[in-house]
């Protein structure tokens, strides 16, 4: 269930080894799962794997790769860029033989446009950045410092930013300021409202909700059945 995949080094060095959590039984439909990022990744970790379990029960393979700089990856996060993550997501799709993609929250920003699939509660770059910078300005104010969104983004574009413990390089800060999820042909949005309960990324303390995992898994199964007709 946990194995590795190799990502070619863009600088021509040794291929990088990253982990994958997968339900891989060699079945015809194989969903590449691109998880939420940063704090939301922690909040949605269990939910994400629970959805994968639902897909497994429905006879669908799913593969959740670590992208460089994320989760267990040994690559430094501050060197990552949105462009490189998009390439890595595409490389993972090829290496793992994915037939579909499920992008979760900001993960939807990386969905390879050659794969059909779903964007679940897609998050835009500006909203992600705004939330993380706001957490920093609120914490700064508690510490008696005054920081602003404008000041921090201007600094971030040049020198990068540390936001809630995540070190983002200047390139990714600039990229996030304008990154919007775009549906490629064969991809569709699944809004949180359809799951009938508040998004688990909102919770101050990570929580789980079997009903939401059932519904999201069910929607994917239904969508696959419709397109197969």
């Amino acid at each position, binding site marked *: 269930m946990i194995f590795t995949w190799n990502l070619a080094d863009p600088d021509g060095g040794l291929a990088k080894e990253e982990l994958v959590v997968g339900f891989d039984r060699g079945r015809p439909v194989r969903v590449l799962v691109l998880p939420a990022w940063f704090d939301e990744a922690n909040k949605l970790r269990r939910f994400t794997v629970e959805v994968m379990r639902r897909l497994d029960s429905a006879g669908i393979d799913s593969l959740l790769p670590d992208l460089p700089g994320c989760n267990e990856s040994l690559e430094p996060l501050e060197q990552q860029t949105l462009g490189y993550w998009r390439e890595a997501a595409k490389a993972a799709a090829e290496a793992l033989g994915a037939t579909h993609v499920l992008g979760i929250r900001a993960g939807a920003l990386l969905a390879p446009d050659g794969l059909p699939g779903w964007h679940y509660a897609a998050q835009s770059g500006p909203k992600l950045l705004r939330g993380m910078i706001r957490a920093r300005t*609120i914490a700064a104010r508690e510490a008696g410092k005054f920081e602003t969104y404008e000041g921090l983004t201007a600094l971030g574009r040049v020198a990068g930013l540390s936001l809630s413990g995540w070190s983002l390089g200047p390139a990714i800060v600039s990229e996030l300021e304008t990154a919007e999820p775009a549906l490629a042909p064969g991809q569709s949005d699944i809004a949180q409202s359809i799951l009938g309960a508040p998004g688990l990324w*909102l919770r101050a303390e990570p929580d789980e909700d079997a009903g939401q995992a059932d519904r999201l898994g069910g929607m994917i199964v239904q969508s696959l059945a419709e397109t197969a007709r």
Partner: protein
Amino acid sequence: MTTLPHTESAAREAAIDRQLKGLIADVLGLDAAQAEAFGPETGLFGHLPELDSMAVAGLLTEMEDRLGIVIEDDDVDGEMLETYGGLLAFARSKLNPR
């Protein structure tokens, strides 16, 4: 300036209150009845250990989405975040600017 009839403005106030309670319930994982018990003096930031700066940032960002408002850096201060009444007064002022 036009004044809304009393009942209409009261209904609108109640709707803001309901939305805000719903949002806090979603962030804190409370059920509707627990959130319904929130009063003006109910403590938020600095009173509830799970409501840290990251959770507050998430709450404000979700408030912007659900209420259709923009919250500036200057808007965010201790008074607004400390109690439910402070947050409600802030939401009202954003929705009914004078």
